[in-house]
């Protein structure tokens, strides 16, 4: 699905990621490691949000380094759904819950039941808790029909109970998921854990 070969990311003299090669398998893959180890950077590169300084990222065996920004956007639109760290960043705050799902491409509101958000269709985003927002964000990611869900520290801003609910959601995702996190509970749920060391 997603494959990285010798990927490196440099910010001027700083080498954030060095010579990283990996393949995202079906199930839940977790990139773990301390702050500054390059988890989020690698995640951005693998989700085509950022171009690597070196190496190649393949999406369904398509090499992406030669693609234009427009082609990258098109590929990302079809294949990848991204969930950011801050729950509110994953939703359009002036739309209702139902409108957010529709905006993400959901044909109906059936997902709300699965996400434990039944009855909240007409709620504003501000009326949801952080955990509910993050679950709705995963719902939106699924609604887009992406081949893989990429999430950056999805539980870091949630309380324990909300984080548990998000972990349940993550574990039940029907598509491969790539998550950057240093949450040990998430690591324990992972089908594959890729530890990154601080450079």
């Amino acid at each position, binding site marked *: 699905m997603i494959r990285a070969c010798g990927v490196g990311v440099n910010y001027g003299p700083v080498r954030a990621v060095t010579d990283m090669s990996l393949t995202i398998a079906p199930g839940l893959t977790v990139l773990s490691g301390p702050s500054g180890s390059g988890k989020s950077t690698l995640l951005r590169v693998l989700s085509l949000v950022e171009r690597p300084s070196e190496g190649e990222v393949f999406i369904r065996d398509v090499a992406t380094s030669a693609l234009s920004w427009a082609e990258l956007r098109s590929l990302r639109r079809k294949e990848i759904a991204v969930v950011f760290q801050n729950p509110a*960043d994953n939703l359009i*705050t*002036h*739309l209702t819950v139902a*409108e957010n799902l529709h*905006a993400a491409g959901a044909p109906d509101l059936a997902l709300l039941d699965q996400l434990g958000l039944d009855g909240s269709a007409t709620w504003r985003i501000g009326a949801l808790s952080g955990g509910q927002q993050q679950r709705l964000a995963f719902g939106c990611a699924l609604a887009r029909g992406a081949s893989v869900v990429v999430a950056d520290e999805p539980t870091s801003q949630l309380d324990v109970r909300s984080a548990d609910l998000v972990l349940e959601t993550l574990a039940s995702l029907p598509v491969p998921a790539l998550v950057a996190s240093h949450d040990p509970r998430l690591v324990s749920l992972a089908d594959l854990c890729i530890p990154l060391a601080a450079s």
Partner: protein
Amino acid sequence: MQLPWRAAPRAALSSPLTLLVSIATTLLLGFVVAAAVLHSSSAGSAALAYQQDRMCPHTVHPSLVGKEDLPLSSAVSMSSKSPLSAVYTRIGRPDFNGLATYGRFGYRPEALAHLTVLQGGGTGLWVPQTIATAAHVRVGDRLTGSPLVVSAIYADLAHPVSGWWCSESQTVVPNPLGGDGASTSVIWVSQVSDLALLPSAFSSRASVSLRFPVEPPSTLAEAEALRDKGNALLTSLRLPLTRVDGLSSAIAAARTSERNVSSALLPLVIISVLVGLAGVGTVTVQWAQRRHSELRLLWVRGASPLSLGLRGVLELGLPLVAGGLLGLLAARLLLPLYGPGVVLASGTLWVALGFVLAVVLASLLVTVLVAGWRVHRTFQRRARSWRPALVPWELVVGLLAVLAWVRLSHNGLGPALKSGDLPRIDVAALTFPLLVVLAAALLGVRLLRWSLVWSHRVRWWKVPAAQLALRRLAAAAGPVTGVLLVGVLAVGTIAVGSSVAGAQQSALDSKSGVFVGANSTVQVSQDIALGRVALPSSLQGNTTLVGLSTGALIVDPATFTDAAVVDDASSVRSLLSGLHRTGEIAPALRIGRAADKEIQIAGLPLLKPVAALPSFPKLGTRGYVLSRESVPAAEQVGSWHLWSSLPLSSLTSSLQAAGISYTNVADRARVLDGLPFLTVEWTFGFVAAIGFVLAVVAAVALLLAIEVRRRQNAVSGALSTRMGMRPSVLWSSHLLEVGTLASLALAIGAVASFVSTGFAVPRLDPAPWLNPAPVLPNLVPLLGSMVLCGVLVVVVAAWLALRGVRTARMGELLR
């Protein structure tokens, strides 16, 4: 269209501040563009109105005249072709009682209703008092060789005549100082057919004038239509008369004035529009910052920068369009406040609407492009280290100001300005003072920014209000310097516009004063100089007798400064009082460039300059002035004039009441064509209007900046007061903070503008061949009103800041 785009207009409501700023931005943009269009159009109409005001009402429509070359019967026949014609016989010697005097007969419909009857009335001959007196004519006397009988004696017409007589004044107002038979008052017949009954001596060399009274046109288009229609009518009459078309030259002058004002405004408007569009761009950047999460989300979901730019325009578009239209509305409603006139050519509002829509479209385009560029730059490309703040903009602008000054000092208002030309305001003339203001503003901003950085070392805790004010200023260096920049530009632009416009008004007045010599003048006979006729008491203390010979002015030192237009009356009086003749040589004042040597002028004694003045009323910058007592023979002086500080109508009515004849009247208020001055004044009036717009921007920006940090102010203020700070100290600190900013803006703007206009104003002279050159008007009222407005804004801003403290709740403090 996907839901986030469809819902964008609704999303605008989630941020009323952005909504307000967007509306305000295009409101100002629309106002400037619409105001420029309306200002130019009203300048054309105002110029036409000014020109028409200087014309006789009956000569607005093209007319036909024939002077003393027609048989009387032909003149009578031709006169039937117009609704308001006049027929005059040649000047002859009509005989009533065997005592003939010079006179001419005339007929004009309703003329008798516009005369002042002294005796009699009704139908018959109406004889002017001068002829009645000279020939001992009485009511009831019969004209020899004619059945016509005198039915009334009327008061002679004299300058200045009413509008009804204006077009005929050359014929109907006699010159009492002219030779016998050169001119005379008119003996009016009550009906045109009576002219056929006159003695045969009056049947040739008749004059006729065919006038076509109309309502004066209010716009140039109406005037052009009237001119074309009028000329077509005159052509269709096929009469062998001379065409008089004053309207064409008035239209040409008004068109030129309108074109010159428009072309002068164009660069200013272009700069304003570019600045306004930059403002729209800034609003869009702020919008993109506020919507950063949503834009990132949509971009990650595959939206392109361009489509996200469209998302921006869908949210901001409606306020931008509304703002533009409100700007047009404001420009129309405020036209009486900033425009030269209120009359607009038909279709002007549509033209203004077109321009407003164009800039609104440009604003929408800027929004799309800036939002798209921002998305691209933020998400698709790392930011480059472009630092516009490092460019020494003040030096660049200062250099441009120097270049503008070089051009202005060589060219003035434009190359080869001649008498009768309307000035084309050179771009250098317009931009020099504004560039100086801009350079000063940028320099002020740079110094303030450095000072605020350095201010972190300052410890003024002995004066807590000052320390707090300084810290707040330093903490908001960006908004503070922005407000200072706009504030300085506002103050400077208002001062430049008002100063130059005011200088033109005073220059026209001063030049007219020097040209005429006094508020009003009339030529009188030498009898007054010889003491045969005394001036009426109503003219004592305000009128003086002045003799005029080639290159010399003969004045009465005791009364001259009572009437003449002089800058420093006491010093002129002192110099004149020293002109006592001793022997054959008459002491004289040498004026300007006149030769500094003894000189002989015909009819005057040998003149010896004993003192000098750079300029003098009537003489300008060349000539000599001597005392009346130095002139032995008043008959030898070229002409004698009465100069008065009274309006012309008061002077002439006093003379008429005293029975003193006069001619060659001059009125300071009308002697010079003021259109060249008005053209410059109107142009810089618009500069002042833009300054007022900037002032509104500065005030609103200041108030918004304070409102934006309301919570921060409230928290810090409430905490400070709970820790023991007196409310008066807090109030003082806010007053100091905002007051410092306002004072800086006022001081920098005022100094820069007054210095630059001080240099520029003398060179913005529409009539450089007339003294004196324009000078800066009294700036105290302008400065005073700006200080007053500044104080008002400061108090409101401080109140706004403190309101947050007063209404702050503990919950808000703890949050």
